[in-house]
């Protein structure tokens, strides 16, 4: 005889349901990702390999020491980009592959809450890894920071993360319609983005239109502003003023979060109509 589940006494709706959904979806990322020790190692170790290799390139060509710091900060920010790419944008595609997506849609929890939970959990887990990269990289290579303003630096970082994870939430809805090409698209959005966002060098090195186009990725302005605020040579190598970059990041944050909401509704309806929520085209 099937066991009866106890009746739900406090049925959650509205904001309480939204909040519970956020907490419920972020839990596996905050707690679960720390249980898999190999992931912590690889998530820190892999970007560190790139950081170390590029630091040695700068040493080989006798670059000023601040460039070593740029690479370390770029390596830490790369952890966030990889998280957004593979664990936000592609996530609904993976969920579709494993059969969870249909369960998300069926459950009373709002999809925006699920996406926000993924973002907050991912942000927490990635921050631990990014901190590891910054601390290890700074110690190994004796990076010298000259912080102009902690508050501005924190604000830039905060807005960069809001805009970045907003972008992740927005693209996650686009990935709802994708199948096998999702993997390749995410794969393609690595090196070209590292290039145009200036992960390893000041974005000012490019003609002005490149950082302008690259600014659609919040890390472009975020990293440029962080370098200006954290390194002695930063202001002279900055693309535009920190103030303008802060305004740009606010605009991107609002744009991506609103777009995520609109696109998610639209894409969900489209995916339901075209029967793509449960398809798996390996």
């Amino acid at each position, binding site marked *: 005889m099937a066991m009866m589940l106890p009746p739900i006494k406090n049925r959650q709706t509205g904001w309480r349901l939204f909040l519970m959904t956020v907490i419920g979806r972020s839990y596996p990322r905050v707690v679960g990702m720390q249980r898999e020790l*190999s992931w912590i190692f*690889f998530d820190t*170790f*892999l970007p560190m*390999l*790139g950081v*170390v*290799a*590029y630091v*040695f*390139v*700068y*040493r*080989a*060509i*006798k*670059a000023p020491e601040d*460039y070593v710091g740029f690479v370390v900060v770029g390596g830490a920010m790369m952890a966030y980009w990889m998280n957004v790419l593979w664990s936000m944008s592609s996530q609904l595609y993976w969920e579709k592959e*494993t059969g969870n997506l249909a369960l998300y849609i069926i459950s009373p929890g709002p999809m925006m809450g699920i996406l926000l939970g993924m973002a907050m959990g991912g942000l927490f887990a990635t921050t631990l890894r990014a901190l590891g990269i910054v601390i290890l990289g700074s110690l190994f290579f004796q990076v010298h920071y000259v912080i102009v303003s902690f508050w501005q630096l924190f604000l830039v970082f905060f807005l960069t993360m809001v805009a970045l994870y907003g972008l992740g939430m927005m693209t996650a809805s686009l990935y709802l319609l994708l199948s*096998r*090409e999702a993997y*390749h698209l995410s*794969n*393609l959005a*690595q*090196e*070209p983005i*590292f*290039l145009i966002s200036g*992960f*390893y*060098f*000041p974005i000012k*090195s*490019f003609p002005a239109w490149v950082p302008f186009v690259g600014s659609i990725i919040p890390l472009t302005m975020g990293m440029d502003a962080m370098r200006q605020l954290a390194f002695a040579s930063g202001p002279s190598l900055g693309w535009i003023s920190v103030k303008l970059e802060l305004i740009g990041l606010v605009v991107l944050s609002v744009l991506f979060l609103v777009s995520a909401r609109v696109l998610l509704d639209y894409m969900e309806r489209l995916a339901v109509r075209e029967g793509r929520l449960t398809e798996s085209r*390996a």
Partner: protein
Amino acid sequence: MNSKTPNGSVAWRSFRMATWLGWKIESNWTDPFLFTVYSIVKPLAAAMILVVMYGVISQGQFGSPVFAYLFIGNAFYQYVGMVMVGVSWAIVDDREHYRTLKYLYVSPISIPFYLLGRGVSRIIITTFSVFIIMLVGVLYLKIPFDPAKIDWVLLIISVIIGIIMLAMLGLLLAGVTLRMAQYSFNIGDSVAGALYLFSGAIFPLQVLPTFLRPIGYIMPISYWLELIRRALVGGVAAAFPTFSNFSNSDLMLILIGLTIFFGFVSVWAWRKFDWQARERGLIDQTNNY
């Protein structure tokens, strides 16, 4: 397995069909045009990161031997990531994604030759992207590259031996991947990333701290990249102190010796890990990550 089928025939058939399958998996997710763009943009962007880094510091002095060193090393290093990781990734792909590895094991094929065949499509794609990167280097970045001065024999022999060496390292990695069911996703990228650092692909080994240099000296990839640089830009590459005491013949002998050594190690390791994976029921183990 059909006992009447000669082993050589099974090996060839496994290799040939896996090559065809690998090509389909790699390429048929989109139309040929997009696939071509995809195959070029990613490696070219990786090369351009180094170009910009170098250009910013040197104020655009791309004629320098240092630039030729890192540009050529980085271009040909694409083979390492694609071939070595490609062969081993077939295990992850077939076990976790397609969930066909157990069926492959019960079919009349040779698994090692099947894995090697799965890497061939990546060799073709990489050769194409390396060609494009080198073309960009010659046309736009003043790589001191004169077709009349290229040592074609040395280049072709080096590339062939290098691909065999990388495929054998891929088999070794495939064995490790097979054995490590739960942690297999990042093994390939980690090894490729570590070799990028220790093989002198983008900077001379002298730049590494002294205690790390021996790792580069025992890696065949270091000698392989040096031979390719010498074949392509001759004296420019020989100007760097790392292998300046070695002639081309010395480097070739070392590369062949290390390829044979790692080849034996790979076959031995594959057999050992393959047996352990069967014994412990890892052939069809999935973790849904």
